[in-house]
Protein backbone atom coordinates (compact mmCIF):
# COMPACT_ATOMS: atom_id res chain seq x y z
CA UNK A 1 0.00 0.00 0.00
CA UNK A 2 1.30 3.45 -0.89
CA UNK A 3 0.74 6.10 1.75
CA UNK A 4 2.03 9.47 0.56
CA UNK A 5 2.43 11.01 4.02
CA UNK A 6 5.72 10.63 5.84
CA UNK A 7 5.91 10.43 9.64
CA UNK A 8 7.12 14.02 9.60
CA UNK A 9 4.07 15.08 7.49
CA UNK A 10 1.78 13.39 9.93
CA UNK A 11 3.43 14.95 12.96
CA UNK A 12 3.10 18.37 11.33
CA UNK A 13 -0.59 17.83 10.56
CA UNK A 14 -1.31 16.65 14.09
CA UNK A 15 0.55 19.63 15.53
CA UNK A 16 -1.48 22.09 13.47
CA UNK A 17 -4.79 20.68 14.79
CA UNK A 18 -3.50 20.41 18.32
CA UNK A 19 -3.33 16.63 18.68
CA UNK A 20 -0.31 14.74 19.89
CA UNK A 21 -0.92 11.36 18.29
CA UNK A 22 -3.08 9.75 15.60
CA UNK A 23 -5.17 7.81 18.14
CA UNK A 24 -6.48 11.10 19.55
CA UNK A 25 -8.48 11.58 16.34
CA UNK A 26 -10.65 8.61 17.27
CA UNK A 27 -11.46 9.75 20.80
CA UNK A 28 -15.20 10.00 20.00
CA UNK A 29 -15.41 6.31 19.08
CA UNK A 30 -16.20 4.18 22.18
CA UNK A 31 -12.98 2.60 23.37
CA UNK A 32 -14.01 -1.01 22.90
CA UNK A 33 -14.77 -0.37 19.23
CA UNK A 34 -11.70 1.72 18.59
CA UNK A 35 -9.19 -0.92 17.58
CA UNK A 36 -11.14 -4.17 17.23
CA UNK A 37 -9.13 -7.33 16.78
CA UNK A 38 -10.15 -8.78 13.45
CA UNK A 39 -10.13 -12.53 13.54
CA UNK A 40 -8.84 -13.01 10.03
CA UNK A 41 -6.96 -15.95 8.55
CA UNK A 42 -3.34 -15.34 7.57
CA UNK A 43 -2.80 -13.30 4.42
CA UNK A 44 -2.91 -15.30 1.20
CA UNK A 45 -1.17 -14.84 -2.09
CA UNK A 46 -3.04 -13.69 -5.19
CA UNK A 47 -2.73 -17.21 -6.59
CA UNK A 48 -4.28 -18.75 -3.48
CA UNK A 49 -7.10 -16.19 -3.33
CA UNK A 50 -7.87 -16.68 -7.01
CA UNK A 51 -8.15 -20.46 -6.52
CA UNK A 52 -10.37 -20.04 -3.45
CA UNK A 53 -12.73 -17.62 -5.17
CA UNK A 54 -12.86 -19.87 -8.21
CA UNK A 55 -13.96 -22.74 -6.00
CA UNK A 56 -16.60 -20.60 -4.29
CA UNK A 57 -17.96 -19.48 -7.66
CA UNK A 58 -18.63 -23.09 -8.60
CA UNK A 59 -21.44 -23.05 -6.05
CA UNK A 60 -23.30 -20.53 -8.25
CA UNK A 61 -25.95 -21.75 -10.60
CA UNK A 62 -26.75 -19.37 -13.42
CA UNK A 63 -29.06 -19.49 -16.40
CA UNK A 64 -26.24 -21.33 -18.17
CA UNK A 65 -26.70 -24.21 -15.71
CA UNK A 66 -30.45 -24.08 -15.26
CA UNK A 67 -33.45 -23.81 -17.53
CA UNK A 68 -34.96 -20.43 -16.70
CA UNK A 69 -38.67 -19.55 -16.48
CA UNK A 70 -38.13 -16.66 -14.10
CA UNK A 71 -38.86 -13.14 -15.28
CA UNK A 72 -40.74 -10.54 -13.21
CA UNK A 73 -38.80 -7.61 -14.61
CA UNK A 74 -35.52 -9.17 -15.82
CA UNK A 75 -35.49 -11.59 -18.73
CA UNK A 76 -33.19 -14.26 -20.10
CA UNK A 77 -32.70 -13.19 -23.71
CA UNK A 78 -29.95 -14.09 -26.11
CA UNK A 79 -27.15 -11.51 -26.22
CA UNK A 80 -25.34 -11.54 -29.57
CA UNK A 81 -21.54 -11.82 -29.23
CA UNK A 82 -21.03 -8.52 -31.04
CA UNK A 83 -22.61 -6.62 -28.13
CA UNK A 84 -19.82 -7.58 -25.75
CA UNK A 85 -17.10 -7.19 -28.37
CA UNK A 86 -18.14 -3.60 -29.07
CA UNK A 87 -18.82 -2.38 -25.55
CA UNK A 88 -15.45 -3.73 -24.34
CA UNK A 89 -13.54 -1.41 -26.62
CA UNK A 90 -11.39 0.84 -24.46
CA UNK A 91 -12.83 3.99 -26.02
CA UNK A 92 -16.28 3.08 -24.75
CA UNK A 93 -15.45 1.64 -21.35
CA UNK A 94 -16.44 4.65 -19.33
CA UNK A 95 -19.84 5.89 -18.34
CA UNK A 96 -18.62 9.40 -17.76
CA UNK A 97 -20.62 12.26 -19.24
CA UNK A 98 -18.96 13.33 -22.52
CA UNK A 99 -18.77 17.05 -21.87
CA UNK A 100 -15.98 17.56 -24.40
CA UNK A 101 -17.33 16.84 -27.87
CA UNK A 102 -13.89 17.15 -29.46
CA UNK A 103 -12.82 14.06 -27.51
CA UNK A 104 -16.07 12.12 -27.42
CA UNK A 105 -17.57 11.81 -30.91
CA UNK A 106 -17.95 8.03 -30.70
CA UNK A 107 -19.65 8.10 -27.31
CA UNK A 108 -21.88 11.00 -28.33
CA UNK A 109 -22.87 9.31 -31.59
CA UNK A 110 -23.75 6.14 -29.65
CA UNK A 111 -25.89 8.17 -27.24
CA UNK A 112 -27.58 9.92 -30.16
CA UNK A 113 -28.40 6.57 -31.74
CA UNK A 114 -29.59 5.22 -28.39
CA UNK A 115 -31.95 8.19 -27.99
CA UNK A 116 -33.23 7.80 -31.54
CA UNK A 117 -33.82 4.05 -31.13
CA UNK A 118 -35.59 4.33 -27.79
CA UNK A 119 -37.74 7.22 -29.02
CA UNK A 120 -38.77 5.16 -32.07
CA UNK A 121 -39.41 2.06 -29.98
CA UNK A 122 -41.59 3.84 -27.43
CA UNK A 123 -43.29 6.18 -29.91
CA UNK A 124 -42.08 9.25 -28.01
CA UNK A 125 -40.30 12.41 -29.15
CA UNK A 126 -37.34 12.71 -26.81
CA UNK A 127 -35.34 10.32 -24.67
CA UNK A 128 -32.55 10.80 -22.15
CA UNK A 129 -29.53 8.53 -21.69
CA UNK A 130 -30.23 7.18 -19.12
CA UNK A 131 -31.28 6.00 -15.64
CA UNK A 132 -30.08 3.17 -13.43
CA UNK A 133 -32.85 0.66 -14.02
CA UNK A 134 -36.56 0.30 -14.63
CA UNK A 135 -37.38 0.98 -10.98
CA UNK A 136 -35.45 4.24 -10.65
CA UNK A 137 -36.60 5.39 -14.09
CA UNK A 138 -40.25 5.15 -13.07
CA UNK A 139 -39.47 6.93 -9.79
CA UNK A 140 -37.92 9.72 -11.86
CA UNK A 141 -41.18 9.92 -13.80
CA UNK A 142 -42.92 10.70 -10.49
CA UNK A 143 -40.33 13.38 -9.71
CA UNK A 144 -40.68 14.92 -13.16
CA UNK A 145 -44.47 14.94 -13.07
CA UNK A 146 -44.47 16.51 -9.62
CA UNK A 147 -41.96 19.17 -10.70
CA UNK A 148 -43.92 19.78 -13.90
CA UNK A 149 -46.85 21.05 -11.83
CA UNK A 150 -44.46 22.88 -9.49
CA UNK A 151 -45.78 20.98 -6.50
CA UNK A 152 -49.36 22.10 -7.06
CA UNK A 153 -50.54 18.53 -7.76
CA UNK A 154 -49.49 16.10 -5.06
CA UNK A 155 -51.36 12.93 -5.97
CA UNK A 156 -49.73 10.05 -7.83
CA UNK A 157 -51.83 7.06 -8.83
CA UNK A 158 -49.98 3.73 -8.99
CA UNK A 159 -51.49 0.75 -10.73
CA UNK A 160 -51.43 -2.28 -8.40
CA UNK A 161 -50.13 -4.16 -11.45
CA UNK A 162 -46.98 -1.99 -11.52
CA UNK A 163 -43.95 -4.06 -10.42
CA UNK A 164 -44.03 -4.27 -6.59
CA UNK A 165 -40.34 -3.38 -6.36
CA UNK A 166 -40.86 -0.37 -8.64
CA UNK A 167 -43.62 0.79 -6.30
CA UNK A 168 -41.26 0.31 -3.34
CA UNK A 169 -38.62 2.38 -5.12
CA UNK A 170 -41.16 5.15 -5.76
CA UNK A 171 -42.01 5.07 -2.04
CA UNK A 172 -38.32 5.41 -1.17
CA UNK A 173 -37.84 8.30 -3.62
CA UNK A 174 -40.88 10.18 -2.38
CA UNK A 175 -40.44 9.56 1.33
CA UNK A 176 -40.64 12.85 3.20
CA UNK A 177 -42.09 14.68 0.19
CA UNK A 178 -45.69 15.90 0.06
CA UNK A 179 -46.48 13.36 -2.68
CA UNK A 180 -49.42 11.07 -1.89
CA UNK A 181 -49.35 7.63 -3.51
CA UNK A 182 -52.67 5.89 -4.03
CA UNK A 183 -54.24 3.10 -6.06
CA UNK A 184 -52.14 0.11 -5.02
CA UNK A 185 -53.62 -0.92 -1.66
CA UNK A 186 -52.76 -4.44 -0.65
CA UNK A 187 -56.16 -5.81 -1.57
CA UNK A 188 -56.77 -3.77 -4.72
CA UNK A 189 -58.72 -5.74 -7.32
CA UNK A 190 -56.05 -7.07 -9.65
CA UNK A 191 -58.41 -8.51 -12.21
CA UNK A 192 -60.33 -5.39 -13.21
CA UNK A 193 -59.21 -3.42 -16.22
CA UNK A 194 -56.79 -0.53 -15.61
CA UNK A 195 -59.65 1.80 -16.59
CA UNK A 196 -60.85 1.30 -13.00
CA UNK A 197 -58.05 3.73 -12.05
CA UNK A 198 -59.97 6.48 -13.88
CA UNK A 199 -62.27 7.04 -10.89
CA UNK A 200 -59.22 7.99 -8.78
CA UNK A 201 -58.03 10.74 -11.14
CA UNK A 202 -58.83 14.30 -10.10
CA UNK A 203 -57.45 17.82 -10.42
CA UNK A 204 -54.84 17.08 -7.71
CA UNK A 205 -53.44 14.19 -9.71
CA UNK A 206 -49.98 14.75 -11.18
CA UNK A 207 -49.49 11.41 -12.89
CA UNK A 208 -51.01 7.96 -13.30
CA UNK A 209 -48.48 5.14 -13.60
CA UNK A 210 -49.12 1.81 -15.29
CA UNK A 211 -46.98 -0.98 -16.68
CA UNK A 212 -46.97 -2.45 -20.20
CA UNK A 213 -47.14 -5.43 -20.26
CA UNK A 214 -48.23 -5.19 -16.64
CA UNK A 215 -46.45 -7.08 -13.84
CA UNK A 216 -48.65 -10.12 -14.58
CA UNK A 217 -47.72 -10.04 -18.27
CA UNK A 218 -51.06 -8.65 -19.46
CA UNK A 219 -51.41 -6.27 -22.39
CA UNK A 220 -53.90 -3.43 -22.05
CA UNK A 221 -54.60 -0.44 -24.25
CA UNK A 222 -54.14 2.62 -22.03
CA UNK A 223 -55.64 5.14 -24.47
CA UNK A 224 -58.79 5.65 -22.39
CA UNK A 225 -56.76 6.06 -19.22
CA UNK A 226 -54.53 8.64 -20.97
CA UNK A 227 -57.59 10.56 -22.17
CA UNK A 228 -59.09 10.56 -18.67
CA UNK A 229 -55.81 11.84 -17.17
CA UNK A 230 -55.47 14.54 -19.81
CA UNK A 231 -59.07 15.64 -19.30
CA UNK A 232 -58.09 16.99 -15.87
CA UNK A 233 -54.58 18.06 -16.86
CA UNK A 234 -52.77 15.04 -15.37
CA UNK A 235 -50.07 12.96 -17.06
CA UNK A 236 -49.87 9.26 -17.90
CA UNK A 237 -46.58 7.39 -17.43
CA UNK A 238 -46.09 3.87 -18.76
CA UNK A 239 -43.32 1.53 -17.62
CA UNK A 240 -42.49 -0.88 -20.44
CA UNK A 241 -40.71 -4.07 -21.33
CA UNK A 242 -38.95 -2.85 -24.51
CA UNK A 243 -39.04 -6.28 -26.19
CA UNK A 244 -42.85 -6.24 -26.10
CA UNK A 245 -42.76 -3.00 -28.10
CA UNK A 246 -41.36 -4.98 -31.02
CA UNK A 247 -44.82 -6.50 -31.37
CA UNK A 248 -47.45 -4.36 -29.68
CA UNK A 249 -48.54 -0.77 -30.26
CA UNK A 250 -46.39 1.89 -28.64
CA UNK A 251 -47.31 3.84 -25.49
CA UNK A 252 -46.76 6.96 -27.60
CA UNK A 253 -49.67 5.95 -29.81
CA UNK A 254 -51.80 5.61 -26.66
CA UNK A 255 -50.95 9.25 -25.84
CA UNK A 256 -48.69 8.47 -22.89
CA UNK A 257 -46.71 11.47 -21.64
CA UNK A 258 -43.77 9.61 -20.13
CA UNK A 259 -42.46 6.17 -21.01
CA UNK A 260 -39.93 4.47 -18.73
CA UNK A 261 -38.69 0.93 -18.71
CA UNK A 262 -36.12 -1.67 -17.81
CA UNK A 263 -33.61 -1.79 -20.64
CA UNK A 264 -32.01 -5.08 -19.51
CA UNK A 265 -33.85 -7.24 -22.08
CA UNK A 266 -32.05 -5.26 -24.82
CA UNK A 267 -28.73 -7.07 -24.85
CA UNK A 268 -27.78 -6.84 -21.18
CA UNK A 269 -27.12 -10.10 -19.30
CA UNK A 270 -28.98 -11.09 -16.15
CA UNK A 271 -26.96 -10.23 -13.07
CA UNK A 272 -27.68 -9.83 -9.42
CA UNK A 273 -28.00 -6.13 -8.68
CA UNK A 274 -27.20 -4.97 -12.20
CA UNK A 275 -25.83 -3.01 -13.91
CA UNK A 276 -29.15 -2.64 -15.72
CA UNK A 277 -30.54 0.28 -17.71
CA UNK A 278 -33.37 2.72 -17.06
CA UNK A 279 -35.17 3.90 -20.17
CA UNK A 280 -36.84 7.32 -20.04
CA UNK A 281 -38.67 9.00 -22.90
CA UNK A 282 -41.22 11.79 -23.04
CA UNK A 283 -42.93 14.35 -25.23
CA UNK A 284 -41.04 17.35 -26.56
CA UNK A 285 -43.10 19.75 -24.43
CA UNK A 286 -41.52 18.22 -21.30
CA UNK A 287 -37.96 18.16 -22.62
CA UNK A 288 -36.80 20.82 -20.17
CA UNK A 289 -38.29 18.96 -17.23
CA UNK A 290 -36.54 15.71 -18.10
CA UNK A 291 -33.54 14.65 -16.02
CA UNK A 292 -30.20 13.95 -17.64
CA UNK A 293 -28.90 15.18 -20.93
CA UNK A 294 -29.71 15.12 -24.61
CA UNK A 295 -27.23 14.59 -27.38
CA UNK A 296 -27.90 16.28 -30.70
CA UNK A 297 -26.56 16.02 -34.22
CA UNK A 298 -25.05 19.16 -35.71
CA UNK A 299 -22.44 20.40 -38.20
CA UNK A 300 -18.94 21.37 -37.05
CA UNK A 301 -16.91 24.34 -38.32
CA UNK A 302 -15.66 22.23 -41.25
CA UNK A 303 -19.17 21.32 -42.32
CA UNK A 304 -18.89 17.75 -41.02
CA UNK A 305 -21.60 15.89 -39.15
CA UNK A 306 -20.88 16.10 -35.42
CA UNK A 307 -22.52 15.30 -32.09
CA UNK A 308 -22.74 17.44 -28.96
CA UNK A 309 -24.65 17.61 -25.69
CA UNK A 310 -27.42 19.97 -26.73
CA UNK A 311 -29.59 20.14 -23.66
CA UNK A 312 -28.84 19.52 -20.03
CA UNK A 313 -31.54 21.76 -18.60
CA UNK A 314 -32.10 19.71 -15.46
CA UNK A 315 -28.68 18.34 -14.84
CA UNK A 316 -27.24 19.23 -11.50
CA UNK A 317 -24.08 20.86 -12.80
CA UNK A 318 -26.22 23.50 -14.54
CA UNK A 319 -28.53 24.57 -11.76
CA UNK A 320 -28.49 22.27 -8.80
CA UNK A 321 -31.44 23.88 -7.07
CA UNK A 322 -33.57 23.45 -10.22
CA UNK A 323 -32.53 19.87 -10.96
CA UNK A 324 -35.35 17.34 -10.78
CA UNK A 325 -32.89 14.48 -10.36
CA UNK A 326 -29.39 13.73 -9.17
CA UNK A 327 -28.75 11.54 -12.19
CA UNK A 328 -25.55 12.56 -13.93
CA UNK A 329 -22.99 9.88 -14.58
CA UNK A 330 -25.06 6.80 -15.22
CA UNK A 331 -25.45 3.67 -17.24
CA UNK A 332 -23.69 4.86 -20.39
CA UNK A 333 -22.10 1.48 -21.06
CA UNK A 334 -25.41 -0.34 -20.68
CA UNK A 335 -27.10 2.22 -22.93
CA UNK A 336 -24.41 1.43 -25.47
CA UNK A 337 -25.03 -2.33 -25.10
CA UNK A 338 -28.72 -1.79 -25.81
CA UNK A 339 -27.88 0.42 -28.81
CA UNK A 340 -25.68 -2.29 -30.28
CA UNK A 341 -28.42 -4.87 -29.60
CA UNK A 342 -31.15 -2.77 -31.21
CA UNK A 343 -28.92 -1.97 -34.19
CA UNK A 344 -28.00 -5.62 -34.73
CA UNK A 345 -31.60 -6.80 -34.59
CA UNK A 346 -33.28 -3.91 -36.32
CA UNK A 347 -37.03 -3.46 -36.39
CA UNK A 348 -37.70 -6.86 -37.94
CA UNK A 349 -35.28 -8.73 -35.68
CA UNK A 350 -36.84 -7.22 -32.59
CA UNK A 351 -40.26 -8.21 -33.88
CA UNK A 352 -39.02 -11.77 -34.42
CA UNK A 353 -37.67 -11.98 -30.85
CA UNK A 354 -40.98 -10.64 -29.53
CA UNK A 355 -42.97 -13.10 -31.66
CA UNK A 356 -40.87 -16.04 -30.46
CA UNK A 357 -41.43 -14.98 -26.85
CA UNK A 358 -45.13 -14.53 -27.45
CA UNK A 359 -45.73 -17.86 -29.21
CA UNK A 360 -43.56 -19.94 -26.87
CA UNK A 361 -45.21 -18.37 -23.84
CA UNK A 362 -48.66 -19.11 -25.23
CA UNK A 363 -47.66 -22.70 -25.98
CA UNK A 364 -46.41 -23.07 -22.38
CA UNK A 365 -49.48 -21.41 -20.88
CA UNK A 366 -51.85 -23.60 -22.80
CA UNK A 367 -50.05 -26.81 -21.89
CA UNK A 368 -49.79 -25.91 -18.20
CA UNK A 369 -53.40 -24.76 -17.99
CA UNK A 370 -54.48 -28.15 -19.35
CA UNK A 371 -52.81 -29.98 -16.46
CA UNK A 372 -55.24 -31.08 -13.77
CA UNK A 373 -55.08 -28.70 -10.79
CA UNK A 374 -53.56 -25.84 -12.81
CA UNK A 375 -55.36 -22.92 -14.42
CA UNK A 376 -54.56 -19.65 -16.13
CA UNK A 377 -55.35 -16.81 -13.70
CA UNK A 378 -56.42 -14.18 -16.25
CA UNK A 379 -58.06 -14.45 -19.68
CA UNK A 380 -56.53 -11.13 -20.80
CA UNK A 381 -54.06 -11.05 -23.71
CA UNK A 382 -50.52 -11.51 -22.46
CA UNK A 383 -47.02 -11.14 -23.92
CA UNK A 384 -44.37 -13.54 -22.64
CA UNK A 385 -45.39 -13.88 -19.02
CA UNK A 386 -48.51 -15.31 -17.41
CA UNK A 387 -49.92 -16.21 -14.02
CA UNK A 388 -50.78 -19.81 -13.18
CA UNK A 389 -52.93 -20.87 -10.24
CA UNK A 390 -51.18 -23.94 -8.87
CA UNK A 391 -52.33 -26.87 -6.71
CA UNK A 392 -49.56 -26.10 -4.18
CA UNK A 393 -47.64 -23.05 -2.90
CA UNK A 394 -45.32 -21.57 -5.52
CA UNK A 395 -42.32 -21.99 -3.22
CA UNK A 396 -42.88 -25.76 -3.06
CA UNK A 397 -43.28 -25.96 -6.80
CA UNK A 398 -40.09 -23.99 -7.34
CA UNK A 399 -38.17 -26.32 -4.99
CA UNK A 400 -39.31 -29.31 -7.00
CA UNK A 401 -38.42 -27.59 -10.29
CA UNK A 402 -34.96 -26.75 -8.96
CA UNK A 403 -34.41 -30.46 -8.24
CA UNK A 404 -34.88 -30.89 -11.98
CA UNK A 405 -32.47 -28.05 -12.83
CA UNK A 406 -35.32 -25.71 -13.68
CA UNK A 407 -35.44 -22.16 -12.31
CA UNK A 408 -39.16 -21.76 -11.71
CA UNK A 409 -41.40 -18.72 -11.81
CA UNK A 410 -41.95 -15.80 -9.46
CA UNK A 411 -43.87 -16.57 -6.27
CA UNK A 412 -46.60 -13.91 -6.31
CA UNK A 413 -47.70 -14.51 -2.72
CA UNK A 414 -44.55 -12.58 -1.66
CA UNK A 415 -46.13 -9.33 -2.81
CA UNK A 416 -49.83 -10.10 -3.22
CA UNK A 417 -51.33 -11.87 -0.18
CA UNK A 418 -54.43 -12.71 -2.22
CA UNK A 419 -52.34 -14.61 -4.76
CA UNK A 420 -51.43 -17.60 -2.63
CA UNK A 421 -50.46 -20.58 -4.85
CA UNK A 422 -49.98 -18.27 -7.83
CA UNK A 423 -46.81 -18.29 -9.89
CA UNK A 424 -45.64 -15.90 -12.61
CA UNK A 425 -43.95 -17.76 -15.45
CA UNK A 426 -41.81 -16.08 -18.11
CA UNK A 427 -40.86 -17.63 -21.45
CA UNK A 428 -38.36 -16.18 -23.91
CA UNK A 429 -36.76 -17.18 -27.20
CA UNK A 430 -34.15 -18.98 -25.07
CA UNK A 431 -36.66 -21.64 -23.99
CA UNK A 432 -36.65 -24.50 -26.48
CA UNK A 433 -39.83 -26.48 -26.96
CA UNK A 434 -38.28 -29.46 -25.11
CA UNK A 435 -37.57 -27.22 -22.12
CA UNK A 436 -41.19 -26.17 -21.97
CA UNK A 437 -42.29 -29.80 -22.24
CA UNK A 438 -39.96 -30.71 -19.37
CA UNK A 439 -41.42 -27.91 -17.26
CA UNK A 440 -44.91 -29.26 -17.94
CA UNK A 441 -43.83 -32.80 -17.02
CA UNK A 442 -42.39 -31.74 -13.68
CA UNK A 443 -45.44 -29.59 -12.88
CA UNK A 444 -47.65 -32.61 -13.63
CA UNK A 445 -45.80 -34.54 -10.91
CA UNK A 446 -46.94 -32.05 -8.26
CA UNK A 447 -50.56 -32.92 -8.65
CA UNK A 448 -49.90 -36.62 -8.46
CA UNK A 449 -48.43 -35.91 -5.04
Amino acid sequence: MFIPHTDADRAAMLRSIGKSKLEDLFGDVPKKYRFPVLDLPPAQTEMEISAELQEMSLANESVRDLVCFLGAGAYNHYVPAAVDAIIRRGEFLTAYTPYQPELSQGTLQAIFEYQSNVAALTGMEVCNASHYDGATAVAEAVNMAYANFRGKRDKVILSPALHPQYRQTIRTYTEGSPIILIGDDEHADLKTSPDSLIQLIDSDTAVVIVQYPDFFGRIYDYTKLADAAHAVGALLAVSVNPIALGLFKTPGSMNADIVTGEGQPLGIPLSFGGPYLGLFATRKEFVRKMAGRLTGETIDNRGQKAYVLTLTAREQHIRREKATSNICTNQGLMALASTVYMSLLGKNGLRQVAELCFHKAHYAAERIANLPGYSLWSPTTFFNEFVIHCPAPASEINDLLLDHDILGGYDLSQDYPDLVNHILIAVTEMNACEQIDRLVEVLAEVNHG
Partner: protein
Amino acid sequence: MNFPENLKYTESNEWINVEGKVATIGISDFAQDQLSDIVFAEVIVSVGDIVKKGDTIATIESVKAAADVYSPVSGKVLSVNEQLAGAPEVINTDPYGAAWIITIDLSNPAEENALLNAAAYDKLVQAHE
Protein backbone atom coordinates in the same frame (compact mmCIF):
# COMPACT_ATOMS: atom_id res chain seq x y z
CA MET B 1 -28.74 50.94 -22.82
CA ASN B 2 -32.36 51.99 -22.52
CA PHE B 3 -33.95 52.54 -19.09
CA PRO B 4 -37.32 54.29 -19.47
CA GLU B 5 -37.91 57.07 -16.92
CA ASN B 6 -41.45 55.95 -16.07
CA LEU B 7 -40.30 52.57 -14.70
CA LYS B 8 -38.71 51.48 -11.45
CA TYR B 9 -35.90 48.90 -11.27
CA THR B 10 -34.38 46.37 -8.89
CA GLU B 11 -30.80 45.42 -8.14
CA SER B 12 -31.61 41.99 -9.58
CA ASN B 13 -32.49 43.70 -12.91
CA GLU B 14 -36.28 43.53 -13.02
CA TRP B 15 -38.37 46.50 -14.11
CA ILE B 16 -41.78 47.40 -12.77
CA ASN B 17 -44.45 49.75 -14.06
CA VAL B 18 -47.01 50.78 -11.46
CA GLU B 19 -50.35 52.21 -12.52
CA GLY B 20 -52.69 52.71 -9.59
CA LYS B 21 -52.68 49.42 -7.69
CA VAL B 22 -51.54 47.33 -10.65
CA ALA B 23 -47.89 46.61 -11.41
CA THR B 24 -46.43 45.11 -14.60
CA ILE B 25 -43.11 43.29 -14.27
CA GLY B 26 -40.35 42.34 -16.71
CA ILE B 27 -36.56 42.20 -16.99
CA SER B 28 -34.42 45.17 -17.97
CA ASP B 29 -32.58 45.90 -21.20
CA PHE B 30 -29.35 45.34 -19.29
CA ALA B 31 -30.54 41.91 -18.09
CA GLN B 32 -31.49 40.73 -21.58
CA ASP B 33 -28.21 42.05 -22.97
CA GLN B 34 -26.21 40.17 -20.32
CA LEU B 35 -28.11 36.95 -20.92
CA SER B 36 -27.73 37.23 -24.74
CA ASP B 37 -29.97 35.09 -26.98
CA ILE B 38 -32.88 33.90 -24.89
CA VAL B 39 -34.16 30.45 -25.84
CA PHE B 40 -36.57 29.58 -23.05
CA ALA B 41 -38.86 31.40 -20.66
CA GLU B 42 -41.22 29.85 -18.17
CA VAL B 43 -43.50 31.79 -15.87
CA ILE B 44 -43.82 29.68 -12.76
CA VAL B 45 -46.72 31.47 -11.09
CA SER B 46 -50.38 31.34 -12.12
CA VAL B 47 -53.20 33.86 -12.10
CA GLY B 48 -54.55 34.11 -8.55
CA ASP B 49 -51.29 33.12 -6.83
CA ILE B 50 -50.14 35.29 -3.95
CA VAL B 51 -46.49 36.28 -4.36
CA LYS B 52 -44.22 37.94 -1.87
CA LYS B 53 -41.48 40.40 -2.72
CA GLY B 54 -38.42 38.34 -3.70
CA ASP B 55 -40.34 35.21 -4.79
CA THR B 56 -39.26 33.59 -8.04
CA ILE B 57 -41.88 34.28 -10.71
CA ALA B 58 -40.14 33.08 -13.87
CA THR B 59 -37.12 31.24 -15.19
CA ILE B 60 -35.27 32.46 -18.25
CA GLU B 61 -32.60 30.55 -20.11
CA SER B 62 -30.30 31.87 -22.78
CA VAL B 63 -27.58 30.19 -24.78
CA LYS B 64 -25.20 31.39 -22.07
CA ALA B 65 -26.98 31.13 -18.74
CA ALA B 66 -30.12 30.46 -16.80
CA ALA B 67 -31.64 33.10 -14.54
CA ASP B 68 -34.54 33.40 -12.16
CA VAL B 69 -36.79 36.45 -12.19
CA TYR B 70 -37.89 37.72 -8.78
CA SER B 71 -40.96 39.72 -7.94
CA PRO B 72 -40.00 43.27 -6.85
CA VAL B 73 -43.30 43.62 -4.96
CA SER B 74 -45.95 41.60 -3.11
CA GLY B 75 -49.49 40.95 -4.26
CA LYS B 76 -51.85 38.76 -6.21
CA VAL B 77 -51.06 37.69 -9.77
CA LEU B 78 -53.61 39.27 -12.14
CA SER B 79 -52.29 38.05 -15.47
CA VAL B 80 -49.45 36.05 -16.96
CA ASN B 81 -47.92 36.63 -20.40
CA GLU B 82 -48.89 33.39 -22.15
CA GLN B 83 -47.01 34.42 -25.31
CA LEU B 84 -43.55 34.27 -23.70
CA ALA B 85 -43.18 30.48 -23.72
CA GLY B 86 -43.76 30.34 -27.47
CA ALA B 87 -41.62 33.38 -28.34
CA PRO B 88 -38.98 33.89 -25.62
CA GLU B 89 -36.86 35.94 -28.04
CA VAL B 90 -39.14 38.96 -27.53
CA ILE B 91 -37.32 39.42 -24.22
CA ASN B 92 -34.30 40.38 -26.33
CA THR B 93 -36.16 42.51 -28.86
CA ASP B 94 -38.80 44.24 -26.74
CA PRO B 95 -37.96 43.87 -23.03
CA TYR B 96 -40.29 46.67 -21.88
CA GLY B 97 -43.21 45.88 -24.18
CA ALA B 98 -44.14 42.48 -25.53
CA ALA B 99 -41.86 40.81 -22.97
CA TRP B 100 -43.82 41.79 -19.87
CA ILE B 101 -43.96 38.72 -17.59
CA ILE B 102 -46.83 39.19 -15.13
CA THR B 103 -49.12 41.83 -13.70
CA ILE B 104 -49.75 42.00 -9.97
CA ASP B 105 -52.44 43.56 -7.79
CA LEU B 106 -50.24 45.25 -5.16
CA SER B 107 -50.91 44.34 -1.56
CA ASN B 108 -48.32 46.78 -0.21
CA PRO B 109 -47.91 49.73 -2.61
CA ALA B 110 -45.28 51.27 -0.29
CA GLU B 111 -42.83 48.59 -1.49
CA GLU B 112 -42.45 50.59 -4.69
CA ASN B 113 -40.65 53.35 -2.80
CA ALA B 114 -37.71 51.09 -2.04
CA LEU B 115 -37.05 50.46 -5.76
CA LEU B 116 -34.56 52.29 -7.96
CA ASN B 117 -35.49 55.02 -10.41
CA ALA B 118 -33.99 55.03 -13.90
CA ALA B 119 -31.06 57.26 -12.97
CA ALA B 120 -30.10 55.22 -9.92
CA TYR B 121 -30.42 51.97 -11.86
CA ASP B 122 -28.31 53.37 -14.70
CA LYS B 123 -25.62 54.24 -12.17
CA LEU B 124 -25.75 50.71 -10.78
CA VAL B 125 -25.39 49.26 -14.26
CA GLN B 126 -22.46 51.58 -15.06
CA ALA B 127 -20.74 50.37 -11.91
CA HIS B 128 -21.13 46.78 -13.12
CA GLU B 129 -19.48 47.47 -16.44
